[in-house]
């Protein structure tokens, strides 16, 4: 059975690493490399998982230190942009000695295909993990067409 098409593509300048994992499937050929982060690394890229559910896709993003108020999810044409700001958990006066987690805001952009029902995208944040539900559009779901038996009628 061929792998089902995936209606989301991660487009954050990591395209080279994405080759061959099937994520390129199911997308229109337009804009092969649409997004490049700027020259200065201002944002942190949150690590994500994506898995399939019967109704669509679920995207989990690690956003430690972020509250609901600080997370924004923007959808513009087929680009979904996730932004979040973590609050510093220590007093201002404390001087950093080591910062493996840099203080900048999180940002990551994804390309959605038409298979995602944009009107029903929902998100929740718990313990610093964002759960984004990307339901499949009705017309993208596999449909069973019933065949009525005509025996006995003709």
């Amino acid at each position, binding site marked *: 059975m061929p792998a089902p098409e995936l209606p989301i593509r991660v487009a954050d*300048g*990591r395209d080279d690493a994405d080759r061959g994992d099937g994520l390129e499937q199911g997308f229109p050929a337009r804009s092969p490399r649409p997004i490049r982060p700027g020259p200065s690394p201002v944002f942190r*890229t949150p690590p994500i998982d994506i898995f*399939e559910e019967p109704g669509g896709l679920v995207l989990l993003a*690690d956003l*430690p230190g972020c509250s609901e108020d600080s997370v924004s999810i923007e959808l513009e044409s087929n680009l979904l942009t996730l932004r979040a700001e973590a609050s510093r*958990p220590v007093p201002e006066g404390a001087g950093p000695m080591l910062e*493996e987690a840099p203080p900048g805001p999180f940002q990551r952009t994804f390309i959605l295909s038409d298979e995602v029902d944009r009107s029903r995208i929902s998100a929740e944040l718990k313990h*610093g993990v964002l759960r984004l539900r990307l339901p499949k559009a009705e017309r993208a779901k596999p449909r069973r067409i019933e065949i009525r038996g005509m025996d006995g009628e003709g």
Partner: protein
Amino acid sequence: MGGLQWQGQWDPFREIRQEVGRLLGNIETMSLRVPRPFPAINLYDEGDRYYLTAELPGISASEIDLGIAGQTVTIRGERRRPEGVPEETYRRQERQFGRWARSVTFPDRIDSAGVSASFARGILTVVVPKNADARPRQIAVSSAE
């Protein structure tokens, strides 16, 4: 275990990461490709105490073990994948899971009885008071005249 010791503020790896990142134009792209220690740790000095923060998204406070031995604070636990998600349904896996442990050896003696920890929004914050002898002090110079 991701042991961690330092003598001062200089983190050679950070400089190398920044330099390499600058050359390639994007540090964060690099850091996702290179295996990172889990959890990421930040350390701060506030004069009479240290702050240790660790990014542990998706974990609950009861799943974190915190231990102190001498000048070393160790945190450990296990981060489990979400339950009920069959392996074959994953399309992308970047988040790190499994058993983890990190320890930090502080350059000054610490007041182990005074250590406290809190956990919110996936960030563990440990407050580590310095031993009274290790706190910065101002000593008044008296005139002998």
